[in-house]
């Protein structure tokens, strides 16, 4: 009976899961029992062999109980830890949903990760794929400051040194969108564990954790997976909403600009239209016109037209420069474009040796016909301006591979190599040209913008005694 009594303290101690103490207690208990109860009493001598068996059984019972209890305790601990992490994760996901800035997400997530793991944590941000990742935040749970002031994690980052080998691991992690570093199969010799924060194709950055190779458990990996995916989802949400609002702003700005250009051009053009209209009426009225008045009226018309051209060029260059040229692509016939352009200068072209050279069966290609015509008109206008009576001007078209080439050849002229590089610049005008040639220095600039919007190139060159302005646009197949 008394033999069973010693089991009580053994059971109590063993159930706490401490193997060593329970063994000691069992040993002491068995010793005391032997000394006081087992005959011969008051000695440690055992006369009956069956008592030795019962001692042995005591040890086995104590061992079994304490080992089971230890296991249970461990499981309990794991469960408690897991629950704690789940709670943290829940807290994290709940808090980040209300946040509208990436920085805020980091501010919430970093201390949570660092504190729950007790490890130094880093965040590396990469805004663009081609950009170098930058250390964006650092949180050390052991430093006393961090626990009070969370903004500290974005400060004094320059003082933290990241070795080039660590950077290489980080780069690998970001480029491949895979976890790397200590505790993984890739670059396990590195000081830190790097976990990419990514959603679909976008890698926003990486989390760096200072852990050792053997500290990595499945449990920890699961936790980190969950945290990083929560972060990635909120990053994606934030970047999408930023994009949205940016789009809305651009749209509103575009609209305002278009309205402004529309009203400015309308308000400038209307009075000019009435000036030109009225003066042209005067010109047709022969009854009161003498030679002097005719000259005056011609000059008024000339100046008004010049002003109109200048205004159009200014408005257009402002339009093409400040926002993307919106193309209205359709099928164009180069023969049409050339003849339209030639029509604009019908009278003056009679004084030149003008020709059109289309070396293709069909000059049909897809582009914004109105804008391409604009380019041809501007180039032709320049050719006329810088040419003499009787010299040749040729408009040409040919297909070259996947592009169509359009050129304006101007015989008997030359542009210095230095000026050739500059002619497409805004407000550039070739020096030494008389003032009779009135230009705004915007025509070629507009040409360049239009051609570039089509994905083409424009250039000028001297060939023998001629200047060729040439541009190409890609041929689009349907």
């Amino acid at each position, binding site marked *: 009976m008394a033999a069973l009594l010693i089991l009580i303290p053994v059971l109590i101690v063993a159930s706490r899961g401490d193997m060593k103490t329970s063994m000691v207690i069992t040993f002491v208990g068995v010793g005391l029992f032997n000394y006081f109860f087992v005959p011969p009493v008051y000695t440690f001598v055992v006369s009956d062999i069956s008592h030795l068996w019962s001692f042995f059984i005591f040890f086995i019972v104590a061992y079994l109980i304490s080992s089971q209890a230890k296991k249970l305790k461990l499981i309990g601990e794991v469960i408690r830890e897991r629950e704690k992490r789940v709670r943290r994760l829940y807290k994290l996901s709940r808090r980040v949903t209300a946040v509208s800035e990436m920085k805020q997400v980091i501010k919430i997530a970093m201390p949570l990760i660092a504190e729950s793991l007790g490890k130094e944590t880093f965040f590396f941000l990469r805004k663009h794929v081609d950009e170098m990742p930058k250390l964006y935040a650092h949180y050390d749970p052991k430093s006393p400051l961090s626990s009070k002031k969370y903004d500290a994690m974005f400060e004094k980052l320059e003082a933290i040194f990241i070795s080039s080998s660590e950077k290489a691991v980080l780069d690998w992690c970001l480029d491949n969108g895979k976890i790397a570093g200590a505790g993984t199969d890739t670059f396990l010799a590195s000081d830190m564990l790097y976990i990419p924060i990514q959603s679909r194709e976008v890698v926003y950055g990486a989390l760096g954790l200072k852990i050792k190779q053997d500290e990595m458990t499945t449990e920890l990996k699961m936790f980190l997976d969950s945290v990083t995916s929560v972060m990635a989802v909120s990053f994606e949400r934030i970047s999408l909403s930023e994009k949205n609002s940016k789009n809305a702003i651009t749209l509103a700005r575009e609209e305002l600009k278009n309205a402004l250009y529309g009203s400015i051009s309308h308000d400038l053009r209307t009075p000019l239209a009435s000036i030109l209209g009225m003066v*042209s009426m005067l010109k047709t009225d022969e009854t009161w016109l003498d030679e002097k008045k005719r000259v005056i009226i011609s000059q008024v018309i000339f100046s008004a037209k010049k002003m109109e051209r200048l205004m159009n060029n200014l408005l257009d260059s402002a339009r093409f420069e400040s926002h993307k040229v919106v193309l209205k692509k359709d099928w164009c016939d180069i023969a049409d474009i050339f003849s339209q352009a030639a029509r604009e200068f019908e009278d003056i072209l009679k004084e030149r040796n003008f020709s059109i050279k289309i070396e293709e069966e069909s000059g049909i290609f897809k582009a914004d016909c109105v804008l391409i015509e604009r380019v041809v008109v501007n180039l032709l206008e320049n050719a006329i301006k810088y040419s003499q009576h009787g010299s040749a001007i040729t408009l040409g078209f040919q297909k070259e591979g996947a592009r169509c080439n359009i050129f304006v050849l101007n015989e008997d002229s030359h542009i210095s190599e230095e000026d050739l590089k500059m002619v497409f610049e805004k407000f550039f005008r070739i020096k030494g040209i008389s003032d009779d040639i009135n230009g705004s220095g915007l025509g070629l600039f507009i040409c360049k913008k239009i051609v570039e919007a089509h994905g083409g190139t424009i250039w000028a060159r001297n060939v023998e005694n001629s200047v060729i302005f040439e541009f190409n646009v890609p041929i689009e197949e349907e």
Partner: protein
Amino acid sequence: MSQPKYKILIVEDDKQIQKLLEVSLEEHAFLLKVCGTQKEGISHMVQFNPDLILLDLGLPDGDGKLFVGKIREFSNIPIIIVSARNGEQEIVDSLNLGADDYVVKPFFTGELVARINSALRHVAKKESNPLLKVEGLELDLEKREFRLEDVPLHLTPLEFSLLKFFMQNSGKALTHAQILKNVWGVGYQSDTKILRVFVNQLRKKIEIDPNRPTLLITISGVGYRFG
């Protein structure tokens, strides 16, 4: 004055342009009524009963294109649009809605008067005439034959329909969509490539210099005008 004066309704809000139109058109013996809003325009349609409307698209009380649509609900009166430069899309929309022609600001009065006369002529000759003639080109609907300077033209059936459509609408600004719909049929409205190809072919047959057409004229970003 043997024939009655044509009446023109001018819907334009800019005072100077109004004056300009008044002065220049009165000189050409038109009877005019000028107003600055669409609302007035509609009421003048009934009271003044004009033969033609000159319409500015930038009016204070709403989109001028809608005005075209409103007029077309009850009248086939010729409408000529007065539009700003760079307004190709607006012009195309108005033409598709039923406007007959357009002029771009700043315009010369000579050009404007030519457009007006052409539009008025077009109404007058709508009564089917079996023999259409534009410059040296003749369409004999009875013989189903085109003659250029009295020499019969060899045209494919599609070329024939296309040229016939141009002839019947000579002097009018025609949009790509209008031509395609009428010649090729509904569903072809946006197939401008085929139209470019056929116009190119047609020019080779009817123009003296197809590179510098004088009959079948392109209107950039809008369509074509014939004659």
